[in-house]
C-alpha cells in the first residue's frame, strides 16, 4: 500500500514499484487505442502552443493558415449541443469563408481563451457572440491589408469565400496570402461592423454537425475512450455513508487480482492496475471499513427540513404594490410545490486522465469548465497554474456539473501517488450516488383574483439552499477525503430566478428563505432552479385560471404584455389545436382513461428566451400512469444560428424534463444514496416518447439567445396542468409517479365525498 499523509509529495516510479511490489514484465493489456482518430479530431493543435490566450485579442480566437484555412480557438465547448458547428457558422459568416474551412479547438487551457464555463445557456449568446466580434475585427483587418496590396479603398472591397476581392468584380487575394500563419496583433474591436442578417449565407442554416458521422460509426474518441502510454486504470472506493471516515483497509483482500494495488491518502482510498478489469475487480473486492455516519435528512425528510431550517437569510427578490395587504384583505388561494433532489444521471460515468509528474500536470477532462478546473487542480496539487494544462474531450452529456471535475481530482491524486498517468472512470453506482445533485426546492404560493377574473395579488415564498458567496467551485470529493484543504460551501447555479408571474398583477412579492445547507452536495443542473420555479408559478397560474373559470390560455394572454411572449404562447397552443374552455375538462369525473391538455409559458431569466409548452395527456385512473401523447413547443431564442441544432436542443430539453418530471428522484436514507442504478433511478424510455410538434421562431434582427435550457422549464407545469384538466387532480410534488397520481386520486375522491 502507498500511504501518503496529508497529500504529501509523489513517489517516484521506482519507489512506487518497490512499495507496491509490482513485478517487472507484467503483460500490459490495453494499448491499442485509436490515437490516429484522436489526432484527426484535434487536428494537429499542438503546433499552436504558445499562442496568446487573451480573449481581448483576435489572435486569441483565430489563426489563419497559409493555405487559407482557419483555426478557431473556443473557450466554450460542445457538450453534445451543437456548438461545434454553430460557433464556426457564426465565425465563418463574419469572416467570409466557408464553414468547412474552419477547424475548431475547444476548451484547451493551453490554446483557447477563458470564456467561462459552458453553462447557463450562454455558449452562443456570450461565447459565440464574443467570437463573432473577433471574426468581424479580423475581417476588417484582412480587408485593410488587401486594400493596401491592391491599392484600392477598403470600402470597395469585400471578404467572401475566403478571399478579399473588389465588390465590382475582379481578382482578389486569399486570406492565406493576406496573413497566412502571421499574427493579427489586434484587440477585439467592439465597433467592427457585423454583417447584415438579411445577407447571411451560413447563419441560420441547418448545417450538419461535423462530429455525428464519427459518433455513429464508433470512431469518435470520447473522454472515456482516451488513453496515454503507460497509463494505469484507477477506481476510487467511496465511503459506505456520506462523511464517513476510513477505519481500515485490508490490502490482502485484493491480492492476486492482476497487479492491482491500493492507494490510500487519509480517507481517500483507491486502487490502480494496468488492466481496467483488474482495477474494477479490485475495487469491488477491497475490504474497507468505514465509520457509520447518519447525518443526512433522508429523501422523505427533505420537505420538512426545508421548512425547519436552519436558515441563513431572507431576501425579497421582487416587490410591486402591497401583496401581503391585498392577500390579507381577500380570500387567497394557497398552494405549495415541491421539487426533489435529482441526479444529472449522465449515460457515461464521469472520467478523466491525469498525468501529474515532475511538477507538471496534464489533465484530460469532459469538464464544462476546463479553465476553472485548471485552477482547481493547481490549487489542490500545489502547482503553479502555468504547470497545469486541461484539455477538453467529449464526455457523456453532463447537463450541468456532474462528476467530471471529481473524476479529474481523483485521477490527479492517483497519478501523483503513483507517478504514472492514471485514468479514472466512475462506475454506474458512483455516478448515481456521488455526482453533485440538483438541489431540492419548495415554494409556497398565494394569490387572489380581481372581481373581473385577473390576478389581483401574488406572493411567492421560496425555500432554497443558498449558494456560498464567491465559492470558486463545487468542493470535490477526492481532495476532501484526502484531507486537502479547499474552499468549502455549496454551489447551486442561479436557482431563485423566475419565481415571479410573467403576467400583469398590481401586487406582487417574491421572496426567498435561504437555507444554510443542502441535503446532498449540490451543483447546477440544467436550467438551475427554473424548472421547479416555473413548475410552481405556471401551475399556480393554472389554479387561478381554474378558480376564475377561465380558459388557461385566455387567462394568461390577458396579463401578458410582451409581444414575443404572446407569439410563442399563441403558436404553441395552435400546434396542439387548442380549443378554449376552462379546466378541468367536462369529462374529468369519468372512469377509465382520462384525456386532458395543459400548457405553460416561460420568459427565461425574465430577459432571455421565450418559450411555451403545451401537451395532451392520458391518465389511467386505475394505475395512475400518465402518458403524454403530443408535446408542442414554440421557442424564440432570437437569431437562430443553426436551425436543426436549436430544434435538437428543444427536443432534448422537452424529453429530458419530461423524464425528470415523471420519474426522477434521488433516494437516500440517513447515511447514503440508495438510488444507484437505472432501475432505482429510472429515466424516460422509448415507449413513453410522445409525438413532438416544434415551432422555432427565427428573429434575425434580434441578438441570439440560448437554447440549451429554456425549453426545459415549462414542461412540469404543462404536464401538471394537463393532468388536472384530464381528471381534476392537482399534482404539486414531482416526480409524478403512478403511486403519487393514484394517491392524489384517492385524496380527491375522499375530499369530494366529504364535500357532498
Amino acid at each position: 500500500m502507498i500511504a501518503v499523509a496529508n497529500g504529501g509529495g509523489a513517489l517516484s516510479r521506482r519507489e512506487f514499484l518497490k512499495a507496491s511490489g509490482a513485478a517487472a514484465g507484467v503483460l500490459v493489456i490495453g494499448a491499442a487505442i485509436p490515437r490516429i482518430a484522436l489526432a484527426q479530431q484535434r487536428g494537429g493543435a499542438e503546433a499552436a502552443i504558445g499562442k496568446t490566450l487573451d480573449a481581448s485579442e483576435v489572435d486569441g480566437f483565430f489563426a489563419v493558415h497559409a493555405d487559407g484555412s482557419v483555426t478557431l480557438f473556443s473557450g466554450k465547448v460542445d457538450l453534445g449541443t451543437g456548438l461545434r458547428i454553430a460557433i464556426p457558422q457564426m465565425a465563418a459568416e463574419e469572416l467570409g469563408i466557408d464553414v468547412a474551412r474552419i477547424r475548431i479547438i475547444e476548451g484547451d487551457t493551453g490554446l483557447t481563451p477563458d470564456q467561462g464555463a459552458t453553462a447557463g445557456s450562454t455558449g452562443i449568446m456570450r461565447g459565440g457572440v464574443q467570437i463573432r466580434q473577433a471574426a468581424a475585427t479580423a475581417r476588417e483587418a484582412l480587408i485593410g491589408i488587401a486594400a493596401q496590396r491592391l491599392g484600392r479603398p477598403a470600402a470597395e472591397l469585400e471578404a467572401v469565400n475566403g478571399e478579399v476581392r473588389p465588390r465590382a468584380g475582379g481578382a482578389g487575394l486569399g486570406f492565406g496570402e493576406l496573413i497566412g500563419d502571421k499574427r493579427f496583433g489586434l484587440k477585439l474591436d467592439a465597433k467592427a461592423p457585423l454583417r447584415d442578417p438579411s445577407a447571411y449565407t451560413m447563419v441560420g442554416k441547418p448545417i450538419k454537425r461535423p462530429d455525428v458521422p464519427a459518433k455513429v460509426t464508433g470512431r469518435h474518441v470520447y473522454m472515456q475512450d482516451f488513453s496515454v502510454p503507460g497509463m494505469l486504470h484507477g477506481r476510487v472506493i467511496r465511503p459506505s455513508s456520506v462523511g464517513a471516515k476510513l477505519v481500515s483497509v485490508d490490502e490482502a483482500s485484493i491480492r492476486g487480482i492482476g497487479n492491482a494495488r491500493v492507494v490510500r491518502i487519509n480517507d481517500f482510498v483507491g486502487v490502480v492496475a494496468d488492466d481496467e478489469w483488474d482495477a474494477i475487480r479490485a475495487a469491488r473486492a477491497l475490504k474497507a471499513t468505514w465509520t457509520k455516519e447518519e447525518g443526512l435528512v433522508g429523501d422523505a425528510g427533505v420537505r420538512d427540513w426545508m421548512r425547519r431550517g436552519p436558515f441563513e437569510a431572507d431576501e425579497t427578490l421582487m416587490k410591486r404594490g402591497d401583496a401581503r395587504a391585498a392577500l390579507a384583505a381577500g380570500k387567497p388561494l394557497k398552494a405549495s410545490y415541491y421539487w426533489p433532489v435529482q441526479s444529472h444521471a449522465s449515460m457515461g460515468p464521469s472520467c478523466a486522465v491525469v498525468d501529474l509528474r515532475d511538477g507538471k500536470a496534464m489533465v484530460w477532462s469532459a469538464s464544462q469548465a476546463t479553465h476553472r478546473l485548471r485552477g482547481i487542480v493547481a490549487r489542490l496539487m500545489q502547482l503553479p497554474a502555468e504547470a497545469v494544462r486541461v484539455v477538453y474531450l467529449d464526455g457523456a452529456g453532463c447537463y450541468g456539473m456532474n462528476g467530471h471535475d471529481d473524476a479529474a481530482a481523483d485521477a490527479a491524486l492517483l497519478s501523483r501517488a503513483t507517478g504514472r498517468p492514471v485514468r479514472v472512470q466512475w462506475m454506474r453506482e458512483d455516478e448515481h450516488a456521488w455526482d453533485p445533485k440538483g438541489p431540492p426546492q419548495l415554494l409556497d404560493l398565494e394569490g387572489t383574483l380581481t372581481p373581473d377574473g385577473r390576478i389581483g395579488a401574488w406572493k411567492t415564498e421560496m425555500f432554497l439552499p443558498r449558494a456560498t458567496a464567491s465559492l470558486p467551485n463545487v468542493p470535490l470529493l477526492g481532495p476532501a477525503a484526502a484531507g486537502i484543504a479547499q474552499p468549502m460551501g455549496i454551489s447551486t447555479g442561479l436557482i431563485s430566478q423566475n419565481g415571479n408571474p410573467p403576467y400583469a398583477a398590481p401586487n406582487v412579492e417574491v421572496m426567498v428563505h435561504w437555507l444554510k445547507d443542502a441535503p446532498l452536495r449540490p451543483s447546477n443542473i440544467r436550467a438551475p432552479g427554473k424548472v421547479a420555479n416555473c413548475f410552481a408559478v405556471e401551475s399556480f397560474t393554472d389554479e387561478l385560471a381554474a378558480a376564475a373559470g377561465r380558459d388557461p390560455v385566455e387567462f394568461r394572454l390577458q396579463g401578458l404584455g410582451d409581444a414575443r411572449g404572446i407569439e410563442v404562447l399563441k403558436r404553441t397552443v395552435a400546434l396542439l389545436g387548442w380549443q378554449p374552455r376552462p379546466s378541468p375538462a367536462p369529462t374529468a369525473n369519468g372512469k377509465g382513461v382520462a384525456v386532458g391538455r395543459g400548457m405553460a409559458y416561460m420568459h427565461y431569466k425574465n430577459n432571455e428566451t421565450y418559450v411555451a409548452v403545451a401537451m395532451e395527456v392520458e391518465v389511467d385512473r386505475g394505475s395512475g400512469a400518465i402518458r403524454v401523447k403530443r408535446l408542442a413547443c414554440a421557442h424564440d431564442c432570437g437569431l437562430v444560428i443553426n436551425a436543426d441544432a436549436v430544434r435538437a436542443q428543444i427536443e432534448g430539453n422537452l424529453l429530458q424534463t419530461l423524464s425528470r418530471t415523471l420519474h426522477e428522484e434521488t433516494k437516500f436514507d440517513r447515511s447514503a444514496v440508495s438510488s444507484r442504478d437505472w432501475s432505482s433511478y429510472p429515466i424516460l424510455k422509448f415507449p413513453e416518447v410522445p409525438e413532438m410538434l416544434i415551432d422555432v421562431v427565427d428573429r434575425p434582427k434580434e441578438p441570439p439567445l440560448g437554447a440549451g435550457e429554456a425549453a426545459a422549464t415549462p414542461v412540469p407545469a404543462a404536464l401538471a396542468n394537463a393532468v388536472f384538466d384530464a381528471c381534476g387532480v392537482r399534482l404539486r410534488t414531482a416526480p409524478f409517479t403512478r403511486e403519487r397520481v393514484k394517491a392524489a386520486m384517492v385524496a380527491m375522491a375522499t375530499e369530494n365525498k366529504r364535500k357532498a
Partner: protein
Amino acid sequence: MPTYRLSVNGESRSVTVSDPKQPLLYVLRNSLGLTGAKYGCGLGQCGACTVHIGGKAVRSCLVPVSSVGAKRITTIEGLGTPEAPHPVQAAFIAEQAAQCGYCVNGMVMTSAALLAQKPRATLGECKAALAGNLCRCGTQHRIERAVMRVSQGAGSKA
C-alpha cells in the same frame, strides 16, 4: 492467463486476459482498441455497450469473454465507416440522431439488429426494440425517425 480466439468484425483476434469472467466489453475496448461500445452501467440496463453476437444485439458488459467461443462478433466499427456508413448509420447522420452520442452505439446496434430481422419494422416495433436503450440527451425522437427512414425506404435505395 487464458487466451481466447475471437471472431471480431470478420477478423480472427487473439486476446489474453487475467480473468475468464472479464466482460467482452473491456476486451473489445482495451485489448482490441474498439472503443465504439461504451461502458454505461455494467448491469445491462442502459444498452450503451451493445454489440452483435451471432447477429443478435447483446449487452457486452454482461458477456464473459470465455463464453463467446467461435460466435461472430460485430461491433459498431464493423458495421460501417464515416466514409461508407451502414444504412442505419447513414440514417442516423441524415437525422442528426445524436447529441452527446454516448448512447448512440447501442441505438445503432439495436436498430441494425431489429432491421436485419424486420426490414419494414413499424414505429411500435422500433420503440419496443429500443425500450432497453436509454438516452439522457432526449434524442429518442430523432432515433425513431432514423429507424423509420430505413424501414420505410427498405427495398429501395435509402
